[in-house]
């Protein structure tokens, strides 16, 4: 069966996407025990990362524009965004392709990419509220946090975080698209998430890396998926420079979403669903 024939365009109703996001948002609250243990694990690993960074600083007041307090804040931010940005991996789309469930979704009269994006937005928002805000509060209580400066600092940070999610979503969607070509795309995923973890600044702030490595990464979309938001939050870039960073994030988001749409169209053309 040619799946492309099944796909009907149109019916673009914002209400529908809103409903998808809302349902996905609510689903995240269904497992309070898992959330609790997840938080505990997150906090433990966060404490280890704080210890390594503070030990690296030693008595130095500042390294590469970071004070020890900045480094602690960086750790809190990355741990807080961990679940919302699915930094440890995301295989939802891949699974529906491998299981053939993707057909049911293709029958629905709305944009496939848009529907997934709405769902992921709901998931990410709920994960940030559940885990992210709690982690930030715990960090503030345990080690103290630096906050964005003033209303403009907050506004730029919120916009940057939204763009980081969108850019990361487009990348995750692209990686999952490999499922249209390979019956075992999980390995491709594992590779991609490991690369993202290093290059988006989750393992270490990118500012600490050697200049050549930072230059290399500046040509990739990965810093836009996390590191940019950290820089804006800490006020390491502000004013016009911050707007430029947001512009780069937006540009990468548009490029990756375009690529995702292209890969999706190609993938659907060759999709064969074997049985139910």
């Amino acid at each position, binding site marked *: 069966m040619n799946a492309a024939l099944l796909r009907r365009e149109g019916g673009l109703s914002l209400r529908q996407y809103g409903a998808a996001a809302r349902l996905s948002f609510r689903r995240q609250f269904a497992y309070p*025990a*898992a959330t609790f*243990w*997840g938080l*505990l*694990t997150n906090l*433990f*690993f966060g*404490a*280890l990362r704080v*210890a*390594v960074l*503070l*030990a*690296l*600083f*030693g008595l*130095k007041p500042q*390294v*590469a524009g970071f004070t020890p307090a900045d480094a602690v804040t960086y750790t809190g931010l990355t741990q807080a965004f961990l679940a919302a940005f699915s930094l440890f991996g995301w295989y939802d789309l891949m699974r529906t392709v491998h299981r053939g469930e993707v057909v049911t979704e293709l029958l629905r009269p709305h944009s496939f990419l848009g529907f997934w994006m709405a769902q992921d937005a709901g998931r990410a928002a709920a994960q940030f509220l559940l885990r992210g805000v709690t982690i930030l509060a715990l960090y503030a209580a345990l080690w103290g946090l630096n906050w964005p400066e003033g209303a403009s600092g907050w506004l730029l940070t919120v916009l940057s975080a939204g763009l980081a999610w969108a850019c990361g979503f487009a990348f995750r969607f692209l990686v999952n698209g490999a499922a249209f070509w*390979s*019956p*075992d*795309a*999980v*390995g*491709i*995923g*594992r*590779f991609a998430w*490991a*690369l993202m*973890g*290093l290059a988006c600044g989750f*393992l*270490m702030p990118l500012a*600490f*890396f*050697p200049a050549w*490595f930072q230059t290399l990464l500046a040509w990739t979309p990965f810093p836009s998926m996390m590191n940019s938001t950290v820089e804006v939050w800490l006020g390491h870039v502000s004013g016009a420079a911050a707007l430029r960073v947001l512009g780069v994030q937006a540009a990468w988001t548009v490029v990756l979403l375009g690529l995702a749409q292209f890969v999706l169209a190609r993938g659907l053309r060759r999709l064969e669903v074997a049985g139910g």
Partner: protein
Amino acid sequence: MHLLRLYFRLLGAQVRSQLAYPTAFVLDALAAALVTGAEFSAFALVLPRFGGLTGWTLGEVALLYGLAELAFVLMDFLFGGFDAPNLSAHVRTGSFSTFLLRPVPLPVQVFGSDFALRRLTRVALAAGIALYGVSQVDVAWSAGDVLLLAGSVLGMIAFFGGLFVVGGTLTFWTVESVEAMNVMTYGGRTLISYPMSIYAEWLRKTFTYLIPAAFLSYFPVLHLLGRPLPDGLPGWAAYLSPIVGPLMLAAAFAFWRVGVRQYHGTGS
């Protein structure tokens, strides 16, 4: 001997299935190495900015990190079947009940139920990091030093294997609280990958006296580098890893037997 042959046949069957899609396997193997590689290279890349880690050079940290990673990956090869996500899947789907029906000892079946060949690249990389550490530290190597490190790795394999067995056993009762075991297994592995002097006093003491992870590799490496053990502990405490690890494993299997005895399936 018969059981060992059976065990290797179980592994062989899994290896053949994993090699069925060679491209996917190669990518998966590369990804496995990248997970270890990315974490350590992030540390190695930023270290020059700071000079050192509270008096520890890159080579010395590489030795600690490489030993812990090597032992953990080897343990994963051996005990992967007991890892909570794997075992809980068997319990939930009911396939664990079929294990009980077969005329083969239960542990042999669980040991042989999850062998991920792709982790071989991680073993190679971890060994590489440890060997780099060995080549960089200022030690006049004696046979005793080599035995000390070998004992440290064996102790770690038994210790973390024991934690996997405990986590797997817990899935007989509950699926949810098992995530907390990750703090002890993956968390413990990460914790002992760096010199433990960098942690808060309570954290270091918890992982020395309550969960005796410090005995596994931190004390052996301190002793090897000719540094005193913390809290005025005697030098021979560095040689306890091959005792601490198997003790943990024996206790874990005692717990496992209790769990299996009360296992009553899920009805699926």
